């Protein structure tokens, strides 16, 4: 059982390491074993083969209200990219 905000996975880069925080409270049903062999799948296919865990949510109705989705999410990301001066992201966004 994982609460919202607790770690689901550990993300490591060259220097940085940190948690992938769970957006929801629930039970972890399955972890994607493919990622052990090739974590790059997360980048290549985030909505397909690159899934990380399957969860059974327990408080989805409540927690869903806090989700930022659609255009609002795009705008929130844009703001964050600007605030943090993430140039690489800005270049990707500009195509």
């Amino acid at each position, binding site marked *: 059982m994982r609460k919202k905000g607790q*770690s689901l996975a550990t993300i490591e880069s060259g220097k940085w*390491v940190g948690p992938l925080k769970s957006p929801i409270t629930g039970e972890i049903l399955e972890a994607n074993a493919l990622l052990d062999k090739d974590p790059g799948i997360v980048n290549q296919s985030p909505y397909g083969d690159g899934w990380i865990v399957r969860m059974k949510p327990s408080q989805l109705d409540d927690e869903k209200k806090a989700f930022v989705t659609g255009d609002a999410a795009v705008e929130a990301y844009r703001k964050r990219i600007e605030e943090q001066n993430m140039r690489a992201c800005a270049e990707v966004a500009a195509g």
Partner: protein
Amino acid sequence: MSTDTSKYADVPYEDKLRLFEEVKSDERYQRYMYGCYECGICVAVCPSARFYDFSPRVITQTLAREDVDLIYKQMNEDVWDCSQCFSCNKCPRQNSPGGLITIMREVAVKHGLKSAKEALEGYGRIIYKIMATGTQVAPDMLQPSAFPDWGPHVKGISDNLEWWRRALPPETLHTTESSWQVSEKTLSELYLIWHMTGVMDMIKEVDEGLHMILMDVMEEKLEEAGFDLDANTKD
């Protein structure tokens, strides 16, 4: 090394004073600070002074004068330029500028100063490896993928790692495999030490994400070993 403290003029004097008092009340402080007569030997032997705008003498002088504003500025900037080699222990007055900086850094970390967070940001993965496995980074970890920020020359080093290592007088590659063999008992003891001595609290202050994943790794081992986490931590 700049002595301009105007950047921190907005920080209340009482807050700065409290940090200095904490540095001064450290039990090591009296052994590291006897008084400086500005001979400059510490600067002459300091590798950071040679390559950066940094002076162990100025740090020691500032503490001796109890210049609270400047001490605060140094805790936010200059103390992170020290390489902690302790060459400055050559001080004829037996001060330890490097030791004083250790204390200043520890207080900066304990209070989660922005400078501490920034200085330690690049070491998160190393801290995670050492604290999760209980061992040092092995020599063969010097690979381009692990150190992309070191630039293209890391590839040259890693390609010929064995030869580079053989060129060093002491044997070094012999630890590559053995260094990762930490017994379960040792690991549990290390985890407990880090919990009980406040190291985990310090990490929480500077990097909450790192603290979270370390707790995940440690909790299970400590419970397996029969340690009562709740009784031994502030969490």
